[in-house]
């Protein structure tokens, strides 16, 4: 994974800044509460949700246990269907492969459909360095790109912006990137969407190269699947002559049939819909329909490290639905930017430190960005036990610093965590163990991260909870 942006504050500091920004908090609260209620209703429609969820977890687990087998199978199938497969061990290599492929077409512009993997590797920036402009075409990504901003949510990256802010960004910057916003555009969502349609249509019609990610890669058939709402994905996947898809190695599923599980789990968990407006599937290239050239870039970039950790491995089941963000009290409070990576919320708190390691302050502090309430696990459509992984990662961070006392405490916490009914007990246990810890301990590295918001350099397992409890006190963060 790419390095942490320079000057990125560690989680507590960034979270404190975010909680001070009341507009952001209001936008975020409104958005997450709306969508979480809708998700619950969409899920309640299916009386076999538990069975689907278990099957989703089982299919992913089985795939991960035989990942080499399925990747080789996928490679063979994509190749047989006329696609070309590239392997990228890390972000730099993936960026280089994509840049070379674009340059080979002679083009200096690409259109892009939102993809977590390409954000993770910093593809747009890497392309810009070699003179290639990447246009984001997802409405929210466009808002982020035009606002020179960073995404704050997986599904709705501009969730922190309200309509008036969006109108101002469009008015000010659309003209610099292409077709300007229409005269007299109001802040009605419909008018804003219309402005985006006009602005981007010109780019779609012109584009020769597109870059995408994928939600799923079917090993047996070599089929790629993109799930979306707006149709910008369809534009990117259909109109250009060359399509380059950057896909994390964990996106593979064994069979076409397996999609029956994920195409039921994903839309309901993600946008709370029975089905999202558009899903595209393609297998290699098709004569006379869509791109003539298709490249699949398989990305490792730290994923094999996660695979090697038997507790952490479940993280790779994630289908990026963002349900865990929407129920997380910490995310709601802190905002997406506090997580210091493209993966915010509970999934970010476990994925980022595993992808990047825990050498920086922000990454070492992420496993503590949770009250361990367990809401994320409850809603996760592939049953990732996020609290279990968080505790595991805390243990690793602690080990790294050699804090024996804490290790013991965390082991106890691990025991408590094994039964969800004991979450409350865990919270109480955490409070009690705090009494036996020294008030002041020298904690280089991540200790500093926390002392920015707290007078006491508290123990990390405690400090988030403490910060959380005091979030509304005078002189605190309100």
């Amino acid at each position, binding site marked *: 994974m790419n390095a942490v942006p320079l000057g990125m504050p560690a989680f507590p500091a960034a979270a404190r800044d975010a909680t001070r920004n009341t507009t952001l908090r209001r*936008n975020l609260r*409104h958005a997450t509460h709306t969508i979480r209620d809708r998700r619950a209703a969409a899920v309640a429609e299916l009386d*076999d949700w538990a*069975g689907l969820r278990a*099957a989703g977890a089982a*299919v992913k687990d*089985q*795939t991960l*246990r*035989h990942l*080499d*087998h*399925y*990747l080789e199978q996928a490679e063979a199938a994509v190749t047989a*269907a006329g696609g070309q497969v590239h*392997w*990228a*061990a890390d972000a730099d*290599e993936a960026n280089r492969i994509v840049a070379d492929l674009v340059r080979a077409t002679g083009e200096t512009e690409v259109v892009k459909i939102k993809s977590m993997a390409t954000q993770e590797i910093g593809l747009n920036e890497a392309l810009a360095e070699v003179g290639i402009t990447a246009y984001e*075409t997802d*409405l*929210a990504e466009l808002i982020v790109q035009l606002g020179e901003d960073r995404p704050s949510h997986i599904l*709705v990256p501009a969730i922190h912006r309200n309509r008036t802010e*969006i109108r101002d960004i469009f008015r000010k910057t659309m003209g610099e990137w292409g077709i300007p916003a229409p005269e007299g555009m109001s802040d009605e969502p419909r008018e804003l*969407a219309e402005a*985006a*349609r006009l602005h981007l*249509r010109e780019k*779609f*019609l012109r584009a020769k190269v597109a870059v995408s990610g994928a939600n799923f890669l079917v090993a047996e*058939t070599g089929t790629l699947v993109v799930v979306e*709402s*707006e*149709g*910008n994905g*369809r*534009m990117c996947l*259909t109109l250009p002559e060359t399509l380059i898809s950057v896909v994390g*190695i964990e996106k593979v599923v*064994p069979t076409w*049939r397996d*999609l029956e*599980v994920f*195409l*039921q789990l994903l839309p309901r968990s993600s946008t709370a*819909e*029975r*089905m999202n*407006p*558009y899903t595209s599937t*393609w*297998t290699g290239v*098709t004569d*006379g*329909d*869509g791109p003539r050239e298709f490249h699949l870039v*398989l990305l*490792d970039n730290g994923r094999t490290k996660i*695979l*090697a950790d038997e507790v952490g491995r479940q993280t790779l089941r994630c289908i990026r639905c963002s349900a865990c963000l929407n129920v997380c009290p910490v995310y709601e409070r802190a905002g997406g930017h506090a997580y210091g990576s493209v993966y915010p919320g509970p999934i970010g708190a476990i994925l980022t430190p595993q992808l990047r390691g825990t050498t920086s302050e922000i990454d070492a502090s992420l496993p503590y960005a949770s009250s361990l309430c367990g809401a994320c696990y409850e809603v996760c459509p592939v049953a990732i036990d996020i609290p279990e992984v968080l505790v595991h990662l805390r243990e690793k961070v602690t080990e790294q610093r050699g804090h024996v006392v804490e290790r013991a405490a965390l082991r106890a916490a691990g025991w408590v965590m094994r039964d969800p009914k004991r979450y409350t007990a865990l919270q109480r246990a955490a409070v009690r163990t705090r009494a036996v810890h020294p008030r002041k301990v020298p904690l280089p590295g991540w200790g500093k991260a926390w002392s920015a918001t707290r007078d006491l350099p508290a123990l990390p397992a405690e400090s988030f909870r403490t910060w959380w409890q005091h979030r509304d006190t005078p002189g605190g963060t309100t």
Partner: protein
Amino acid sequence: MTDSRDLILGRIRSALVGVDRAEHPANEPVARDYHDSHTDTGLANLLARNLTDYRAHVHRAAEAELPGLIGRLLAARGARTLAVPPGLPTDWLPGDSGTRILHDDGTLTATELDRVDSVLTGCAVAIAETGTLVLDAGPDQGRRMLTLVPDHHICVVRTGDQIVASVPQALRRLDPERPQTWISGPSATSDIELNRVEGVHGPRTLDVVLIAEG
């Protein structure tokens, strides 16, 4: 490139040392403790309800009434041009309406399609439980571009044999080698304060005609 392939596969194999290499995925089917469908009656009504819920306009007609209905839908929008895929049944087409009909022979460009008002197609299968139409580029559906660029899509579904209840049933009918577009309502976004707004890039109006087998 080959080096990274070997490197990544090597990393995976060493990450999976705990997995018995004799174990083969084909021998351990995962438990599929879920339904094949959640309903099996009234599929056409359910499809209509779910499509309407996502703001598609649903119409019903006998096959013989299609030309008249389609003519009215086009007239209501003032559509001057209608693109159709090469294998569309010609007896679906409106008669002497004012709309010019463009038969896609595979040479229409995206820029040309951008000036086309409407497109008329069939579908491969429709899923009642989710309100989804699946297009698989069959002769009566055409290239993917055709149903993407124009702002108005009319899609005809034969209720007798094209509606299935569920996602699992639909997947069994579909051939993964064919490029597919699954459509559930018109293009939409929820990116601005989570308000669902129709139509960013795909067709902003979706008319679905359910025809009873004649």
